[in-house]
């Protein structure tokens, strides 16, 4: 009888411990897998940005081929939301509640991201590297949300500083998209120029639906602008530069990180992009002389970038995929998370991931240096991530001539 009692007690202990272990196990993690979610438009007008998710996917496959992270493979679940926040919300809820994601990465667009931000933060689910430089990610800061995309404010500051101090221009104007992205550019430019006692000579809003750029160019010409900052999408850059050329107005054009894919920009502007000064968040090594653009990997001395091209892109990308900035950015946004996951060790929890993310200091992969700090509810800088950008100039053969080293930009809170 005693013997049976021992068996029963042993069995019950195993069951209870098993249940306890099961209850303690973190959502989205098994002994062999870590489930990571991501959304991104593969269809619709924002589809070109879909390469971000495909880049992340190839990067995760490369990591898995190298043995995964502490014996676990990364299982990447990404879906097409068509840049429609209702679909983003639906997809995130389904993946989170059906399968259970350990964390979310990247995610293209401010509006889709804002639709799901509260849902993820309320459940204390880490979200790392949103694919948009919005201040909404850090104002107010969230313990579980880590931004890695440099804010557009910084682009505008650096471009204005360069225009005034290096090129000696005094008349600077801006065309800005009438949304969060464009307004950050406007604010950054205004604040930077004020430091030199200057003001923008023209501030022209551009709506997404605007087609005719002649009135905009007329205003720029009347303002005698020597340099024009373009905080608009690639399509409007092409229109503004094309119309400017036709109207014989060719100032020094300057663009943000969103137009950093030089070969793409050269193609859509039919070469008009040559000479444009652009802010860049990475993918090139600014300290190397004569570096090519991202497509020209063989000319690159960037060892990490070369590795990603060989080990991720060539092996795992679809044969029609283009090795470009957007695809590589999908890897760059999530590099810090991979670093943190490695530092977590085998005993992985969300809290531990957050703690390791907070320890990241001056981490550099294919983007600029990324640093985080322990969470403080009133200090957005603890979640900004990358604060450096550098300037390059597009050349006529669709390459980049690097103009500056990495430059640290100043964070300006909304409305200050």
């Amino acid at each position, binding site marked *: 009888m005693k013997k049976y009692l021992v068996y029963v007690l042993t069995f019950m202990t195993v069951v209870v411990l098993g249940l306890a272990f099961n209850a303690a196990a973190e959502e989205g993690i098994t002994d062999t897998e870590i489930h990571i979610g991501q959304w991104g438009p*593969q269809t619709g007008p924002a589809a070109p940005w879909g390469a971000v998710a495909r880049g992340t996917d190839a990067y995760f496959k490369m990591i898995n081929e190298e043995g995964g992270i502490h014996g676990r493979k990364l299982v990447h679940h990404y879906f097409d939301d068509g840049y429609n*926040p209702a679909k983003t919300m*639906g997809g995130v809820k*389904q993946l989170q509640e059906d399968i259970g994601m350990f964390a979310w990465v990247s995610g293209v667009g401010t*509006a889709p991201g804002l*639709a799901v931000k509260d849902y993820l933060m309320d459940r204390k689910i880490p979200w790392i590297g949103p694919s948009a430089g919005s201040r909404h990610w850090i104002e107010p800061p969230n313990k579980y949300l880590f931004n890695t995309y440099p804010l557009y404010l910084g682009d505008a500051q650096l471009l204005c500083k360069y225009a005034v101090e290096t090129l000696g221009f005094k008349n600077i104007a801006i065309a800005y998209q009438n949304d969060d992205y464009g307004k950050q550019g406007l604010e950054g430019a205004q604040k930077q120029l004020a430091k030199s006692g200057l003001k923008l000579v023209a501030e022209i809003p551009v709506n997404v639906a605007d087609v005719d750029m002649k009135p905009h160019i007329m205003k720029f010409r009347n303002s005698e602008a020597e340099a024009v900052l373009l905080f608009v999408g690639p399509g409007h850059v092409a229109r503004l530069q094309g119309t400017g050329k036709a109207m014989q107005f060719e100032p020094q054009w300057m663009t943000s990180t969103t137009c950093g894919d030089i070969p793409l920009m050269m193609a859509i502007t039919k070469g008009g992009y040559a000479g444009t000064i652009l802010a860049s968040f990475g993918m090139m090594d600014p300290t190397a002389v004569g570096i090519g653009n991202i497509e020209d990997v063989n000319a690159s001395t960037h060892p990490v970038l070369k590795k990603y091209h060989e080990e991720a892109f060539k092996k795992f990308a679809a044969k029609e995929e283009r090795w470009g900035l957007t695809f590589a950015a999908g890897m760059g946004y999530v590099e810090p998370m991979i670093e943190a996951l490695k530092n977590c060790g085998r005993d992985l929890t969300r809290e531990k991931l957050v703690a390791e993310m907070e320890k990241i200091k001056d981490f550099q992969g294919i983007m600029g240096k990324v640093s985080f700090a322990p969470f403080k509810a009133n200090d957005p800088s603890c979640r900004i991530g990358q604060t450096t950008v550098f300037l390059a100039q597009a050349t006529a053969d669709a390459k980049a001539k690097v103009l500056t080293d990495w430059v640290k930009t100043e964070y300006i809170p909304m409305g200050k």
Partner: protein
Amino acid sequence: MDRKRDYYEDVQIFTSGTIVFWSGVLILLLSIFPFIAKNYYVYVANFMAINVIVVVGLNILVGYTGQISMGHAGFFAIGAYGTIALMTHAHFPFLLALPCAGLVAALLGFLLGLPALRLEGPYLAIATLGFGITATQIIGKIKMFGERQGLHAPDLTIGSWHIETDKDFYFILIPITFFLVLVARNIIKTKVGRAFISIRDADIAASTMGVNLTLYKTLAFAVSAFYAGVGGGLYAFVLRFIEPELFSMFMSVMFLTMVVVGGLGSIMGSVAGACLLGFLDLQLRNILEIPYVGDWIRALSESYFTLTGVSNIQLIVFGLILIIIMLFEPLGIFGIWIRFKKYWMTWPF
């Protein structure tokens, strides 16, 4: 079979005991649904219910009055922004802000209905399309509405009930949807509804019979806009964040497609169309997970489409479903239902 033999039979909301019985069953099933379904499906149900409200309203205009609107996303946006603005700036409670925002949309619908008196067919379609585009452009320039940067919905409380989850919101949304569908059915069975139908069938004859075309055409626009406005107000709280680009021309086209697929001039058809297309809109993303079919579609996509082919296939399948419904049943889902009913009621002959 469905011929009415007297006036009172025509104005009944529930035409038979069977319908009352099945309506009761539906209410019961809807009541227990959030307790047995996963939260994601409750979200899908909420999304479908909002589509039902808008599409039932749009059918009053398109299906019953014979007018057309390609700008309902504009009214939807006005309802969404109006509800949030009334709650945050005027401190209206949700249940007051929602109909008020609907009334604002209705007023604009009435105003849009005035020029519509002189327009019909494609001309009216273009005029309403212009309204839809203009409405979102104007909203995108108003500071109180967050301009292009969008607005967050405030916390939602009704009395001491703090509504946080999809399940909580479901219990607000479904009764509102039920109520508005019943009101729409009732409108159609009144003098107003008969006036709408007479305008659709022969407006000159209707006018000769004493139907005030100005009044009823603008009223149809106003009622339809009210429904869209209320739907928009609810949508703002399902998403919790809105921005002008959400309310695109595609959204207006989608609403109109739901009306046509459901069946013009049928309330129940609108409910079915809104549910089917709303569901497909969210769920076709998972098409590759269907056993066998998913693998076949993946292989097809990889062979004949580009690298984003798998995603594009969702839209192709969506389009195919629409074409098949329209090809085989121009009366939409309602037509399929009528055939089905007729078959069983006359069986075995």
